[in-house]
């Protein structure tokens, strides 16, 4: 008997699988962000000067751009999480999980634009100075 047969063709991806995969990836990214965030905040212990030094680094344009990515990551993770909660707790919602995905992602995309455009303007402003 062959315990681990080789795979000829990868299993077909579909919305539920991609949504789960992105949820995992964004979840890991958020863990890394939190570690970074705690590291930045902990520098407050070294007094105002040391803290300002670190803050000057994380306020560079590249970080302003990364923050837009952070907004997207948080929004995806939060709103896909909302979809999972709806699937889990609403009655007979599992069959319509794709529609629910579309609905929550529309809200997430709206919020992303709402927050992302001013953040991008801020980034451009920082670049020109």
């Amino acid at each position, binding site marked *: 008997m062959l315990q681990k047969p*080789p795979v000829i063709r*990868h*299993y077909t991806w579909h919305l539920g699988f991609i949504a789960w995969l992105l949820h995992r990836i964004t979840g890991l990214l958020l863990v890394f962000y939190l570690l970074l965030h705690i590291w930045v905040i902990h520098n407050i212990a070294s007094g105002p000067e040391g803290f300002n030094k670190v803050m000057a680094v994380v306020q560079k344009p590249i970080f302003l751009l990364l923050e837009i990515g952070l907004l997207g990551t948080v929004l995806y993770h939060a709103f896909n999480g909302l979809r999972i909660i709806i699937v*889990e707790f609403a009655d007979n919602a599992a069959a319509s*999980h794709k529609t629910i995905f579309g609905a929550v992602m529309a809200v997430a995309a709206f919020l992303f634009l709402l927050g992302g455009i001013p953040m991008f303007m801020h980034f451009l402003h920082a670049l020109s100075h």
Partner: protein
Amino acid sequence: MAEYTFRIFRYDPEKDETGRVQEYRFEPEPGWTVLDALNYIKWNLDGSLTYRRACRHGICGSCGMTINGKNRLACETQLKDLGTTVVTIEPLRGFPVIKDLLADMPPFHDKHYPLKPYLLTRTPPPTDKERLQSPEDRKKLDGKYECILCGCCTSSCPTYWADKNFLGPNALLKAARFLFDSRDEGFEERVNVIDDKHGVWRCHTIFNCVEACPKELNPTQAIVDLRKLMLRGRL
């Protein structure tokens, strides 16, 4: 019809170290299913090809296999619906392979025993009639009892690929079929198996089982319903 290429997983335990791909090219008749094509290969081209089949009508659950990267019943999959003339056929993944397309199913079936997939009662039956059920209560079992045990759902589940102790969508659907039956009184006997880290809580709502089920059942719905039942039990 055009000429089709069938790329089929082959493994002979007496000759092969591991699985390999063998290609067959021929022109199938219009209206053929994947199972018809496999039969054609076995009867005309290569008698050594091994696979399970029985009813040819999508009710015995024997011919579940991975066709073009998705678990389906070979007998219910029309070649023309695949939308390509290259057809890749693999045994159901997540299980050991005995030979060619023959997946070893006991790891799948064994998941049912601890769940006691039969009516459990403590109260004595009425002496003058059977245990009756109202049409409304009967309706609660729709989408739960139709399973044909083909294995397409559990074999498509990434959680099962990663955790072979996970009960899998199929066994949990079966558990729901009895736990939501108004006549069944076996909650106590089953709850410890389901309310476990390898039970309902392991599911990550990836929905591969729902995509794969040839009977269009929804094991994920059964799993979330069971979770709600477990939560209510705890509250």
